[in-house]
């Protein structure tokens, strides 16, 4: 019983990581139809931001709290810059955004290597996050790692914030208007260029937040982005492009599936089985879990 509960928690925590890395992408890929291969490098930028801040702020807890907004701004600014320099010339040409951002991702990796050195680095986690809480006592205690709980909380907070922004704010309305019909939005007086850039800023900023969270799980390195980018795309494509709801559900389902399969088999076999399940699912629903039928961009 403890094992099942423990594994479910592990699955949910893997799902939270997946969700965090995919969330920003669901905005830039899902809503704006830009295949941003540099999304992983924005995650890396967030992680390195945490590392840099920790060098100047000695308290690990405080530096983590500071890192969250700063990483959002750093990665967001990188994203907005990328949008302004390159991507705004390539809307409606998704394949070209793929190639361009892939090139950018390689350049950013090399830049990180030049600045921080090729070997991976680590941050110190705040003491409160290195421990665990005991949920069920007894001989075989059920424990939840604090770092995982923190990541879960962060993922939920990010989803809520993003969905409220899209639904309730004037900016959100403008983003949705541009996505649904760019020309009509433009003639209605919306500055589509500015909306694009802001949306890109938010999506990339969320990648930065994911980067901060990933420092709690593993090492920080120039190639950490490439390790997560495929998982992020899987979540978006299976969830249904442009659908926040789909991404949320799929991230947690894949997380639990991965952890349950991993427990009963091995890491590699579980990865294969998850991919097989995804292929099978896409045969059945090529459009993903949810789709918006009336969209102009797909």
């Amino acid at each position: 019983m403890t094992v099942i509960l423990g594994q479910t928690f592990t699955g949910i925590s893997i799902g939270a990581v997946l969700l965090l890395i995919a969330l920003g992408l669901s905005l830039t890929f899902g809503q704006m139809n830009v295949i941003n291969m540099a999304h992983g490098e924005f995650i890396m930028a967030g992680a390195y931001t945490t590392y840099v801040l920790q060098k100047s702020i000695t308290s690990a807890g405080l530096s983590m709290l500071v890192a969250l907004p700063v990483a959002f701004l750093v990665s967001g600014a990188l994203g907005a810059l990328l949008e302004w320099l390159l991507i705004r010339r390539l809307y409606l040409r998704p394949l070209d955004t793929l190639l361009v951002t892939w090139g950018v991702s390689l350049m950013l990796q090399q830049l990180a290597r030049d600045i921080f050195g090729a070997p991976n680095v680590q941050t110190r986690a705040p003491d409160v996050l290195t421990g665990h809480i005991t949920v069920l006592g007894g001989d075989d205690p059920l424990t939840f790692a604090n770092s995982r709980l923190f990541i879960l909380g962060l993922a939920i907070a990010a989803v809520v914030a993003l969905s409220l922004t899209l639904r309730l704010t004037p900016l959100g309305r403008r983003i949705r208007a541009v996505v649904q019909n760019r020309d009509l939005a433009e003639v209605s007086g919306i500055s589509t260029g500015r909306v694009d850039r802001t949306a890109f800023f938010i999506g990339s900023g969320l990648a930065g937040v994911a980067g901060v969270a990933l420092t709690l799980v593993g090492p920080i390195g120039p190639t950490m982005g490439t390790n997560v980018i495929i998982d992020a795309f899987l979540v978006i494509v299976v969830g249904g492009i442009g659908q926040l709801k789909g991404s949320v559900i799929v991230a947690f389902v894949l997380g639990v599936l991965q952890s349950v399969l991993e427990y009963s088999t091995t890491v590699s076999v579980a990865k294969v089985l998850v991919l097989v399940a995804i292929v099978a699912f896409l045969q059945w629903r090529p459009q993903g879990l949810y789709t918006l039928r009336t969209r102009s961009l797909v």
Partner: protein
Amino acid sequence: MAGAAALAAALVLSACGAKTDAGGTSDKAAKADTSGDTVKVGLLNSLSGTMAISEVTVRDSLKLAIEEINASGGVLGKKIQPISEDGASDWPTFAEKASKLIKEDRVAATFGCWTSASRKAVKPVFEKNKSLLFYPVQYEGLEESPYIFYTGATTNQQIIPALDYLKSQGKKKIYLVGSDYVFPRTANKEIRAYAKANGMKVLGEDYAPLGSTEFSTIANKVKASKADAVFNTLNGDSNVAFFKEYKSAGLTATSMPVVSVSIAEEEVKSIGSQYLAGQLTAWNYYQTTAGAANTKFVKAYKAKYGQSKPTSDPMEAAYTSVYLWKAMVEKAKSFDPEKVKAASDGITFDAPEGKVTVDGASQHIYKTARIGKIGTDGLIKQVWDSGKPIKPDPFLKGYSWASGLS
């Protein structure tokens, strides 16, 4: 669904990045270029990628040895000129760079490689070109190559002493965790055979892909197994994620000690001693190892690379390997690999780990085994040693339980 199509295209593109073997076909063996007053040697290490955490220090240590030798007059009157190449934690790249070092730079010998996968990748290149590789890292044994000198430990100088130690501490039930490639899989096969013959039980065996950072499930499995100890053959910075998760799961060095065979001082420093304090390691050398040769080595290394830089076993084995090569060349009075090999038997060096001797038959060296405990200061203190250098036995011929392994 242009998006999905583009994604598929991206996957294909990134797969193209992986290069294929470049052992190449050589019409004639490339002879080392020793015409001038220098002799070139190759340094082949991962300076980027998941293994860089470990291999950069080996390269630094090789450079130190070369500088020292050059300062004292070089080898056979020639200064050593190192050519450093980056294997980038990618085995085909290792093979390609090895070939480049031998054929284009025409080096007299090459020092480097860390993972067994990279060694296996370059082995045919060195054999085909009849050029020498000095390999400085402990490994799983069961290998001999006429063109490789193994200056790190083989199984009976590290893994078996570690198992003997666990047994002597009453640890009967063990759990195996490793990276998914040659070394851990072979090592674990040997550990299972040992366990069977010694009344120990292996409760589980788990592998994570090299570079993997998701260890929550493995930590849960280890915890649920209620083993006495964990035998860790993870390599590179997967260890960071593993030990973070291990601590998060509430496991400690007291409740379930982990004995690691790939974590040395440098890795301890970057993983963080708060995650590792009290855990065990098995090596032949620690920065704290007593002896005048080590004091000199540690001092020279810190003077060159910074006071905060620790020294570790693979660094020591790499450093020693350059001196062993020098001694062999001087005994052979030639840089020719065949003559160097012929001169190798019985060569000794007063290494930082203590006196080492080359066993010409297996091209391994006699080494002292040492078990250490990681301290809160990040240094490793010896808790047991074998007393004298152990004769290398890469094929475990001296152990009846190992007869079925190959």
